[in-house]
């Protein structure tokens, strides 16, 4: 149920994100007649401080939000997965060193770090992907490390070692398949976190101004006092979109987890939940 809902929501947003550039949507030029115009039959979600259509901006803004979310999550998973597998598998000093690095990145405060990086590199979508990826990888790395640490003690991994298998063989044939489902789960959580972090960074103007995305929409709405003008339609829709995508990602992670971890299927046996039949016939 949750899986279906999550996939539907994400699918719709992807379609919307693609339809922006495909249909050549354009919120139109600045229109002083319609500054903060309320939703109407023409502009379903009203217009913003420049009199441009909010719905079209929302559709266009979906693409950068999703692209940054997915790419940053991919960066986080790639770094986190590799470091996590290496640390969990190696034990000894390498594990210790990598663990300290992970600890270090976990305590890096997100916004100041992003500010410093933007100050050095300048704003831009690519930079944001890297920044968010760097901020998020250590969580993935920790989770993967813990799983690999217990996974390498599995008897069939020990059997492979007793067979004389190389580390590469054990890692690719036995360890990686164990952690892939976990990477999928933490991956969808990372997408959610990445989209949220991105919106926050954009809200503080750390993402550059050239790109129209949900985060920048909220930023502009605040800067131009949309709320003072009672123009809720400029703030709520992008916020709601962010919430929806994040919720969908969490649901996806949850249902993946439930599918992959049969231990979560527990029933309370204290209450009689089984059926009582009158006769001994086969049901």
């Amino acid at each position, binding site marked *: 149920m949750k899986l279906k809902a999550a996939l539907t929501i994400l699918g719709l947003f992807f379609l919307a994100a693609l339809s922006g550039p495909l249909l050549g949507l354009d919120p139109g030029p600045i229109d002083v007649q319609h500054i903060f115009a309320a939703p109407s039959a023409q502009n379903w979600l009203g217009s913003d401080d420049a009199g441009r259509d909010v719905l079209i901006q929302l559709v266009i803004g979906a693409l950068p939000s999703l692209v940054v979310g997915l790419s940053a999550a991919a960066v986080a998973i790639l770094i986190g997965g590799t470091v996590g597998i290496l640390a969990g598998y190696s034990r000894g000093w390498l594990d210790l060193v990598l663990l300290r690095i992970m600890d270090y990145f976990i305590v890096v405060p997100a916004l100041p770090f992003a500010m410093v990086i933007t100050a050095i590199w300048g704003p831009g979508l690519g930079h944001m992907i890297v920044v968010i990826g760097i901020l998020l990888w250590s969580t993935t790395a920790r989770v993967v490390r813990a799983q690999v640490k217990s996974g390498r003690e*599995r*008897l*069939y991994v020990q*059997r*492979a*070692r*007793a*067979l*004389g*298998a*190389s580390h590469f*063989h054990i890692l690719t*044939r*036995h360890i990686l*398949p164990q952690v892939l489902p976990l990477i999928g789960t933490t991956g969808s959580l990372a997408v959610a976190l990445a989209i949220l972090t991105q919106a926050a960074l954009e809200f503080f103007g750390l993402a550059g101004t050239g790109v129209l995305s949900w985060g920048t929409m909220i930023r502009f709405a605040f800067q131009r006092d949309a709320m003072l003008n009672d123009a809720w339609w400029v703030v709520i829709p992008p916020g709601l979109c962010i919430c929806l995508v994040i919720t969908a990602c969490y649901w996806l992670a949850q249902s993946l987890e439930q599918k992959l971890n049969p231990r979560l299927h527990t029933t309370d046996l204290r209450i009689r939940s089984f059926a009582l039949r009158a006769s001994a016939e086969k049901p």
Partner: protein
Amino acid sequence: MSALLELKSVRVEFAARGLFGEGPRVVAVDDASLTVGRGEIVALIGASGSGKTTTMRAALGLQPIDAGEILLSGQALGKMTGRALKDLRRRVQLIFQDPTEALNPRMTVDEIMREGLSIHHIGASAAERRQMIAEALGFVGLTPPCDFLARHPHRLSGGQRQRVAIAAALALSPDLLIADEPVSMLDPSIRAGILDLFARLRAERQMSTLMVTHDLPSAYHLADRVYVMNNGRIVEQGATRAVFQAPRHDYTKTLIRAASGRPVA
């Protein structure tokens, strides 16, 4: 009969890890000597914590030893390097207690069988490997092999899983099998079949087996000689029947009394 595996006064110590660095050293195996001859099944009996598993790991070359010597066909394990060390992993095959855990649930029987062959580059062609796998599966009674190759371990019974594990070991034509409680996780009615496999290997292929177990009936039925281990020391050894009928050491007596349903206290 020349000895295939020979342990000479092996000693293994563990450093108990305390709160502040290394604690006192615990002797896990103390002055243990045993031999396994060619075509012989030898049982190493002992309770958990007796040091039998550590001894087994040492014989596999997986556990560094603090004193003594381990020889495989006269070669010292401690002096092996590189290629010889890797070949050791082929020459000595380990059969685990729990076949369900020892086989990767994501691999098919075919992949499990091929894994060892590809690690050790055995078999010149795919066809030759297929032939070797079929032959090994046939020996352990999984016939016709094509019925089993595509299956995953969870679609096999416990006994069949253990047969696959044994076949995978056999395909590498090892010199020595080390079986760690090979039947204790299996139901009594299928134990006999697995034990019979080891007996057939001895009869038909002159296979040497070191069986590490606390299950006395299987040692009694199968082994030519037994060693009894307690607290890291080998306390009794001899021909199976002689030891079981007239145990000399008190520990062996209690062990046999417990397993045959007589009062121990």
